[in-house]
Every structure is written in C-alpha cells, then in structure tokens.
C-alpha cells in the first residue's frame, strides 16, 4: 500500500489552474523535495494535502485511508502536520504554551505534552525563551517554534513550506540537523524549498512543479539536471 497517494489533484482560482491534475506518491520514510519556480502551485498543493483548501478534483490517500474531505484538525490528528510559508504561531501565549497547544490538540495528556515540549525546546535551542510570548520572538525563533509544533507528536508526514527561507544560518542549521536526524529514524517529509543546494543535499528524490503541473519527478540530481526544469527556472527568473 502506498503511504501517501495524490491522485489527479486540481485547484482552480477563477478559471486559472493553480494545480492541474497532479499525481504522485510518497513512500514511508521518504524525504521528498518539492521544488518549482514561484507561483508554480507548491503551496496550493500543500494546502490541499493539509485540508486548508478543498480541491476541485482528485483525491489524497494516507495509508489507504482517503482524507480528501477531512477537515484540517482531523487531518492533523491523522498525522498530516504542516508548516506554513508565512509563519503562524500563537502570539499572545508563551513559546512553551505554543508547543503545549499542539501537544494537547494532537491528543497528548498534560504531563506527556510538557515532557515532550521541554525536550523539543532544548533540541531547538528555544529553552531560554520558553516563557516569552511568541509575539516577542525574532522571525527565526518563530519559525523554529512553528517547526517544533509539527513534532510534538511524531507526524505520519511533515509538510514543510520553505522552512529555511529568510532564517539565520544558525537556525537553518538547527532545523536541517533535526530533519536529517528524524529522517534517519524513518520520519517521512515533503519539503518545499527554493534553496537548490539544500534540496540537493537533503533529498534523494525531488518533484518539480511548473505552472500547476509536475514537470519532473525522480532522483534529485536527475531532476535538477533536467533541461525542462532548468528552462522553467530560467523562465521564472526572467519573468
């Protein structure tokens, strides 16, 4: 059985296809890079996987269970955890409590949530700001915090939308190490990134989108050397 199966997913905005009959599978334990020029539909695709957008067609199946119509919070509990391109944290509660919201929301009891949150704070070097309201954190710290909330309960699959963009290198390093370690332990990821060296280094496999469709899917090195992919990126930059 395929771990995550995306079949014919499509989304139109005012007649224009943002995502156009996209098919792909993710196997358990894979770390798949999702690349493509700006506006190619990566975030829209993630929105349909996490339930934030209802697709106009197609299905999403996780471990044999169709989740296409499941509301966001039930999909999160089914293990599809998502990090947004524009950071979303709870500004007026503390860093620690941000993690506790995720822990309790995903079904942990109070004690386990606290234990888990403390461990994550340590691992992400956020312990010194645990008691600060998240609204007072730096942009990078907020990103780290949102990243952390994806892992309060090990997700079935983590969908990360540009986690490394506009983040201080030291924090990028923390997140990168975290992803590599979890991946080594079998955690499944779908990683959207603009940063080609990062994708090249972290992902064995990549999917490249362009104008809502999948342009190439396979070994990252092959995808990045695919003339159509190079062309799409150059075209995107020229635009």
């Amino acid at each position, binding site marked *: 059985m395929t771990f995550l199966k995306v079949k014919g997913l499509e989304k139109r905005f005012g007649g224009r296809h943002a995502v156009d009959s996209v098919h792909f599978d993710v196997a358990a334990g894979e770390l798949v890079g999702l690349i493509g020029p700006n506006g190619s539909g990566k975030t829209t695709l993630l929105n349909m996987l996490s339930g934030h957008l209802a697709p106009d067609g197609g299905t999403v199946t996780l471990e044999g269970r169709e989740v296409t119509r499941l*509301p966001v919070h039930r999909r999160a509990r089914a293990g599809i955890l998502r990090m947004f391109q524009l950071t979303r944290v709870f500004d007026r509660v503390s860093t620690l409590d941000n993690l506790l919201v995720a822990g309790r929301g995903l079904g942990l009891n109070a004690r386990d949530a606290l234990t888990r949150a403390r461990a994550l704070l340590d691992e992400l070097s956020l312990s010194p700001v645990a008691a600060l309201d998240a609204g007072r954190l730096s942009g990078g710290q907020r990103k780290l915090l949102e990243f952390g909330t994806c892992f309060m309960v090990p997700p079935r699959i983590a969908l990360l939308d540009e986690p490394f963009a506009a983040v201080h290198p030291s924090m990028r390093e923390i997140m990168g190490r975290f992803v590599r370690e979890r991946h080594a332990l079998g955690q499944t990821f779908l990683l959207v990134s603009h940063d080609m060296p990062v994708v090249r280094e972290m992902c064995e496999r990549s999917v490249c989108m362009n104008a809502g469709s999948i342009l190439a899917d396979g070994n990252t090195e092959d995808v990045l050397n695919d003339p159509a992919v190079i062309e799409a990126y150059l075209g995107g930059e020229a635009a």
Partner: protein
Amino acid sequence: MGNSERRLRAEFHGSLVILALVAALPLVLTSVYWQGVVIVSLYYALQAMGWNLVTGYTGQMNLAPAAFAMVGAYGVGLLSHHWGISPWLGVPVGVAAAAGIGLVLGRIVLPLQGAYVALTTLSFAEILRLVIGNSYSVTRGDLGLNVPTVFDGRLPYYYLMLAVVVLVQIALYALMRSRMGLFLQAVRDDEVAAASRGVSIVWWKTLAFVVSSAICGLAGTLYAPFAGLISPELGLILNTGLVVSMVVIGGMGTMIGPIVGALLVYTAGEMLREVGDYHLIVFALLVIVFARFFRGGIWGLLQLGADRLPGRRETGAREG
C-alpha cells in the same frame, strides 16, 4: 507547569484577594445604598467574566452579554409571573435558556470573522430585546415584570452575589487551566494555526459561547429578585458597552480584569452620577486609551510596575 499557568494563578489569587476585601466591606460600608451599588457591580462583574471568556480569551467580539443577562432575568421573571414559580427554581431555567440561546448564536457566528461577529451578535442582541419588549401579552413589554424578593434586607443579596462570583471565578480558573484555556487562546491568536494542530475550532468556539452566555444569564437570574422589577432595558446595548469598558479597563484576557474593572467602573459611575451621563464619555475615552496603549488594562499596568521593582527583574523570563 506551563507559563500561562503561572500567569493564571497570579491573576486568580489576585482576584480572590479583591473578593475577600469585598466580603469584608460591609463592616465599614454600612450604607444600604452603597451596598446596593456593590451588588450591582458584582452583577456586572459576572457579565464581564462571561464576556471575557468569549472575547478576551477566545477573540470573538460578542456584543450580546447584556442581552443574555436579560434572558436570564426574564427566565426568572416569566416563571414567577405566569406560574408563581419561586425565583430559586427560575435560576436554573434562566441559565439554561441563556446557554441554549448562546448555543444558537455561537453556531451562527461560527463561520464569521472579526467585525461580522460583532455586527451579528449586536443585531441578535437587539432582536432579543425587541422581541421581549414587544411581546406584550407574555412579557408586559416595557412595563416590565415584578419579581418577588427572596431575602429580607440587602446583605443576603450581597453575599449571595459575591459567593456566586467566587464560585464562577473558581470554575473559570479550572476551565482556563485545562486544555480548554490553551485552545481558546490559540483560537484567538490564529484559528488556522489552531486547527492545523488538531484543535477543533468549531467545538471550542461553540463551547466558549455557551459557557459565556450561561454566566451572563446567571447574572440576570440573580439580579431579578434583587431588583424586584425587570424590563427589556437590561438588554440595552449601553449595558453591553459598560461590560466591555469594564473588561478593557480592568484587563482583557486576564482572570482578574473583569472583576477589578466592574467594581471600579460601576462604583466610579455611581460617584459621578451628579454630573449626569458625562461619566460615560469618560469611560469611553478610557476604553480607547487602554485599548490603544495599555492592552493589559489596570492589571497589566500593575504587573509592569511590579516588574520594575528591584529584585523582580527578569524573573518572568526564567523557567522554574
């Protein structure tokens, strides 16, 4: 223990100190008139506590707290007027009616955002008031309803209202310490992010509305036998405005703000009674100033002052 737990505990203990002072007040405050003023302050404190749950903690701009107090009061009044049922038995009925209507209102505003929640709850409140004001054969309209007293004298009402405020405060504290407190604040700060972490925003927002409405209804059921006469004026938007100003001035989204705000604002209003309705202008200005510059209200200002004291610096930023 989470950081918000420590914050909650400080606010809760602070509120108990204030309420203990209120309990001791009749020792020196022997004027029946001023005891009555405190009773009405506590009536508003309950509404403020209910409103704070749904607006301060959950971020849903509900402009119907006074309407729910009116519903509670009419629950007591109608049972007594038509069937001669004791106000004591009317209390659970009034609370249940307010909670039920709160459930309906909660479901209506669920998909709405920001200003639309305010507009919808405001219209809803006005409709409720107009229905009660115009259902002459049932409610006697603007003539109002007489409600029999349940006690002789002021002090029993004083301590009943105070005891209920304490009990509701304890219940709210327990709610806020549970995962519900975390979830409501998460919904307030970012609904999309809350849902993305498994929080059912439909369920928690509805629950916040129901509990908030029930508390406001409870306030009305207790007010009715104390006042002896209830009318649709209880549900005036002006009274909702008073509730809002109390919470904003006291400290919105805190356990203590609604209680401090209600006591201060209502008694100040009584003291300024001679100058006419100008005190409302003062409160309105205060609300603007607090909402703009002191989001934490009076409680927030006190905290700021305490943090500046020598030896207290940075303790807030350390985890114990």
